[in-house]
């Protein structure tokens, strides 16, 4: 989508590793690219399209649930809808966005000309795309798409109980999509750790880069477990008898949740980084509590590897007290991150741009997800609310009201960088308010539904169950969310088509290195026209500006407050 702008604004390049300029804008050039920005944009673009597709599936789910005793779709198709919606959102939308955002930004933020092993990253994209195709191919099979829920427990998901080809395609698709994400994560992590420009020491990396490091460490440690789980399921598709034994059923759950708890933090951390960057940029000040936040991100990530059993409290076959302990302890690093958010805003001078609005809304909304998360980490509460709509509300607050808002903050914040075009501010505000109201109206009533006893994953309910009012409200909210997405599409389409608002290199007065180069950045990120600036701290451009303004402003030199000294670098 940005091909023309790019070639139009491209200064001359003499880099030999870059294909000749005439070829750069073609589809073939995009599809065989080794430029981390293009690989990331391919991944992000695919994920955003899929966000809309699997979002539409959720709308059908909501339509079915609006009134009691409705049969718009059959039970089996309903099961297919929520399975593809849920697994699509997790494996194909938010996780890829979380990782590919790092693929786009990390090399820029650490002043590197490229990502390490770009072809591996590109393989990651292709595997992800192939996985998507396999998963959606299920809709074209005789028995329809996979219908076993996003965590696909055996024995239900063995070929005995769900014999459809769609089920097998789904297992294969999830396997390779996640494999692709491991590849991308590995290259990004390698870049952040080893391929930084000389002056960018570890403690001069922006918060987002740190969040990406923590994320990718979890990917490396935990995602292979999903490959093992899918392997086990695949084995059970061929030999369904193994799942008559409890051992394998429980083994699957352990393998699965060992991946699937960390994945929820993979879907969360990069957005903590995004919100930190956006909040501090539009507060006009460096992020408060940088070091504490870095440490807490890393501890948070390490702890998140040992909480998986909290998804198995009701199995009667897990050490509940241990998982409850580790899960509740997570509130410490989470609280420290929140402290940073708030303190940054408290000492800021705020500009309420569209990305800022999304970042601000993230704070209280994700908090609801987090606080209810501590509640469900308490076994005696979880026994009652697990597998009810309370849980559905809980994770939609973390994912839809949290990560999704972080995603849109990132989208509005870096869209100008990636395309050289600003989005429309007015439409952006419409999108924001519709989404905020819609999200809360949709998901808040679900807490109540869960406490009233509505199990999740039920295709319909009866009038006498008493679930009707809350479901009507939830569906009304979903309409608002849909409107908000339509506004977003309109915003992108008109902005890109009309090209009326060139962004310039640094439309927001950003702090980090990506804002020092052109929009979109040149193939190797920094060139003669856009050399890497000095990097005295994790907010180099802020330092630069402060230096230019001179000391006379307040007399307080940023160097005095740890910004320059933090970390081991010279």
């Amino acid at each position, binding site marked *: 989508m940005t091909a023309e702008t790019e070639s139009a604004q491209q200064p001359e390049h003499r880099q030999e590793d870059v294909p000749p300029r005439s070829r750069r804008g073609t589809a073939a050039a995009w599809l065989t690219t080794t430029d981390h920005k293009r690989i990331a944009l391919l991944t992000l673009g695919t994920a955003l399209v899929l966000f809309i597709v699997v979002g539409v599936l959720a709308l059908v789910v909501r339509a079915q649930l609006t009134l009691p005793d409705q049969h718009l779709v059959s039970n089996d198709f309903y*099961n297919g809808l929520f399975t593809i919606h849920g697994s699509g959102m997790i494996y194909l939308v938010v996780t890829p966005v979380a990782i590919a955002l790092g693929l786009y930004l990390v090399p820029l933020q650490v002043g590197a000309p490229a990502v390490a092993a770009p072809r591996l990253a590109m393989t990651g994209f292709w595997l992800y795309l192939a996985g998507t195709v396999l998963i959606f191919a299920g809709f074209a099979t005789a028995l329809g798409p996979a219908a076993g829920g996003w965590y696909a427990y055996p024995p239900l998901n063995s070929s005995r109980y769900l014999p459809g080809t769609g089920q097998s395609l789904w297992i294969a698709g999830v396997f390779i999509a996640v494999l692709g994400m491991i590849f991308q994560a590995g290259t990004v992590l390698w870049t952040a750790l080893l391929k930084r420009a000389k002056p960018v020491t570890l403690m001069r990396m922006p918060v987002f880069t740190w969040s990406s490091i923590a994320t990718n460490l979890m990917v490396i440690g935990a995602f292979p477990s999903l490959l093992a789980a899918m392997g086990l399921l695949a084995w059970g598709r061929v030999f369904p008898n193994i799942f008559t034994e409890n051992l394998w*059923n429980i083994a699957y759950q352990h393998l699965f949740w060992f991946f699937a708890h960390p994945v929820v933090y993979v879907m969360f951390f990069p957005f903590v980084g995004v919100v930190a960057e956006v909040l501090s940029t539009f507060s006009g000040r460096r992020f408060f509590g940088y070091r504490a936040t870095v440490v807490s991100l890393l501890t948070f990530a390490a702890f998140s590897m040992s909480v998986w059993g909290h998804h198995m409290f009701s199995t009667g076959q897990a050490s509940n007290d241990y998982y409850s302990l580790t899960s*509740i302890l997570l509130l410490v690093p989470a609280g420290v991150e929140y402290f940073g958010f708030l303190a940054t805003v408290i000492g800021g001078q705020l500009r*309420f741009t569209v990305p800022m609005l999304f970042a601000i809304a993230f704070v209280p909304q994700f908090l609801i997800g987090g606080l209810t998360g501590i509640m469900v*980490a308490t*076994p005696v509460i979880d*026994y009652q609310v697990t597998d009810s709509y309370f849980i559905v509300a809980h994770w939609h607050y973390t994912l839809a009201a949290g990560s999704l808002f972080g995603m849109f903050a990132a989208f509005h914040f870096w869209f100008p960088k990636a395309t050289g075009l600003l989005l429309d501010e007015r439409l952006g505000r419409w999108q924001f308010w519709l989404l905020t109201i819609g999200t809360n109206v949709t998901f808040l009533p679900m807490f109540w539904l869960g406490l009233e006893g509505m*199990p999740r994953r039920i295709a319909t*309910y009866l009038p006498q169950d008493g679930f009707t009012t809350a479901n009507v409200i939830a569906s009304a909210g979903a309409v608002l969310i849909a409107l908000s997405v339509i506004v977003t599409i309109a915003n992108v389409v008109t902005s890109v088509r009309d090209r009326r608002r060139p962004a310039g290199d640094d439309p927001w007065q950003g702090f980090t290195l990506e804002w020092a180069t052109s929009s979109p950045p040149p193939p190797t990120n920094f060139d003669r026209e856009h050399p890497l600036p000095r990097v005295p701290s994790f907010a180099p451009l802020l330092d630069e500006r402060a230096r230019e303004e001179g000391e006379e402003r307040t007399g307080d030199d940023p160097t005095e407050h740890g910004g320059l000294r933090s970390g081991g670098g010279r």
Partner: protein
Amino acid sequence: MSFLPIFRDIFLLEIVIASVVFAVIAVLLAVSLWRRRAGAGRPPSSRADNMPLEIGYAVALLGIAIFLVVVTANANGRQAQRQEAVLAAADVVTVDVTGFQWCWEFAHRDGPVTVTGACAEDPATRPTLVVPVGRPVELRLTSRDVVHAMWIPDLALKSDVYPDHTNVLATTFDHAGTWLGKCSEFCGTHHPTMEFFIRAVSEQEYQQYLASGGASV
């Protein structure tokens, strides 16, 4: 003596804490959004750190976390103890509960009564589990095919139901009544209608029920 009281206590405790935390953060955020808006003309601070404050805060958080860990582990322990007390009682009523696609089967060990149903759309096809009031009841849960879960929302009783494994729910019913039970673990096509009723009756009626071979009471 269901698990409802424990659930209620802890839920109330945590919802109060959560509400306070939410309120504090929301108010802080709202106030600073207002005071710190660009129009207010307050220059941004350039402070990057306040280590003593941050460490003190983290320690306070750790204190809260430890408090919650202790409270919840304790509550979980109490709940387990209750179950054990029930199981240890001499006059325990044992029922073998079997989940299958897509309904339930209740086999009473005290009498030759086995109840099952069709769990079709019509609620009349749901089976009923009859138990005596005041005596400890042990439900031994297992499945014939996939994973199900037995859930009685109004009594806060829930446990997963596995093939090749038996989970136990043990409780005592304090008063007579009928409650709706559900399957809460997704188990395939007819998961939504996989419901049952659980009915607590007096000891005398329960004996009649067993003697009559499961005729309705």
